[in-house]
C-alpha cells in the first residue's frame, strides 16, 4: 500500500536531507527519522525518510540465503 525505496543520505541541513537513490537526488524530510545520519541508507516514502535501513540485517538476509542454498546444493 505504500511505495518506499532505499536511498543514501548525502547531505543534511536541519531536518532536510538530500538522499541519493541510484543517481537520483531527492530532498527528503527527516521529521520522522531524526536519528538518521550522513551516509545512512533510509527508506523514503512520499518525501519523508520513514526508517533507517539496517545494513547488517540487509546483508544477513542475503548471505543467509546464499549460504543455505550452497549447503543444499552440495
Amino acid at each position, binding site marked *: 500500500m505504500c511505495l518506499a525505496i532505499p536511498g543514501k543520505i548525502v547531505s543534511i541541513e536541519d531536518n532536510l536531507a538530500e538522499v541519493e537513490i541510484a543517481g537520483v537526488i531527492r530532498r527528503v524530510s527527516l521529521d520522522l527519522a531524526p536519528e538518521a545520519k550522513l551516509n545512512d541508507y533510509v527508506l523514503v*516514502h512520499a518525501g519523508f525518510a520513514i*526508517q533507517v535501513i539496517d545494513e547488517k540485517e540487509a546483508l544477513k*538476509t542475503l548471505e543467509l540465503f546464499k549460504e543455505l542454498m550452497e549447503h543444499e546444493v552440495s
Partner: protein
Amino acid sequence: MKFLKEYRDSRLAGEILEKIKKISKKPVKFMEVCGTHTVSIFRHGIREILPDNITLISGPGCPVCVTPNRHIDEAVALCRLPEVILATFGDMMKVPGSKSSLAAEKALGADIRIVYSTMDAVDIAVNNPEKEVVFFGIGFETTSPTIAAAVLRAEREGLKNFSVLGAQKLIPQAIRALLENNEVGINGFILPGHVSALIGIKPYEFIAQDFGIPAVIIGFEPVDILQGILMLVKQVESGTARVEIQYSRGVPPEGNPHAMKVLFTVFEPGDALWRGIGTIPGTGLRIREEYQKYDAVKKFGIEVAESREHPGCRCGEVLRGLITPLQCGLYGKACLPEQPVGPCMVSVEGTCAAYYKYGKRG
C-alpha cells in the same frame, strides 16, 4: 541500486522457489494485505511460478480502494470552493465518487494540484497566502505520520491557510475484523513491510496468539516475497503460528516510535468507514481537539449528501478476499480501467486494476 537490485536476482529467486516447491505440501491460502504486494506479485509474475497448492489472495490494503465515496464527495465539494486549492496524491485523481471525480472537476476548472509529498502541499500554502490549501490525505500508518508532520509544520510556521481532509486508516485492527468472521479461511498473512516499518511487530501478535495463524512481515522485491512465502510455508507445514519478520532491513521489531509519536500528537484513533467492509471501530484517525483548526471539514463546514455506491460493484467482497474480480459481473465489461465503476479498478494497486492490467481477462 543498492538494496533493490540484489533482491531481484533471478537465480536467487529461482532457488527459493525450488525450496518452496520441495517443502510445501498442504493446500494453503495466503492473503497479501497490502496493495503494493499485489502489484509486485503481478508485476513479477509470482502467482504463476508458485506451486498450485499455494493460492495468494488480495486483501484490503489499498488505501484508495477502501476510501468510501463520502470522502471523495467531500473532496469534490471542497475543490469547488473558489478560494480552495486542493492538493492530493496522484492516486486519488480518478477515483469516482457518488457523482464526480477530482479528475473531472479539474477538467472543469477546479484548482487541484498533484503533490508527491505533504510538504509540497504546505509549500503551496506558503506560496499562495491568499488561497486556502486543503490537503486530501489518504493512507495507512506509513503515510499518516507524513500528514501529521505537515500539520505540525503549519503550526510551527503559523500558517492559517492550510488544512487537511483526512481519510486515513489503521491496518492491524482491520485484520482483526477480517479474522473475526474469517470467511475466507486464510492460512497465513503476508504483512505489509512499509506499514510495519512504522508500527513494528507487536500490533500483529494477536494474529498468531488469538487466531493461531502464521504471519510474516515481508518486503516488496521478488526475492523478499518468495523468501517470505517460504517462511510462511515452513510454519504451516510444521504446524506453528508465529509473527516473523522477513523484511528485517527495513523493519526493526519496535518500528519507528518517533514517527508514531508524531502521528498521535496530531491524530487520535477513531472509527472508520471502510468501503465494502463497513465501520470498524478504532481503525480511523481523527484530528485531536488541539489541532481542530486544521480539519478541513470543520473549517469549511462541508456537508455532503448521503453518498451512493454503485450497486453492481463488488469491491467490498474483493477487498475481503471473498471473490476475485473475475467473479464480478461488471469486470472487463462495464468496468474498465478507463471507465472504472469502483475504486478497485482505479487505483494502480486495486485488485481489479492489477488483474486487468496484468492480463487476467477470464
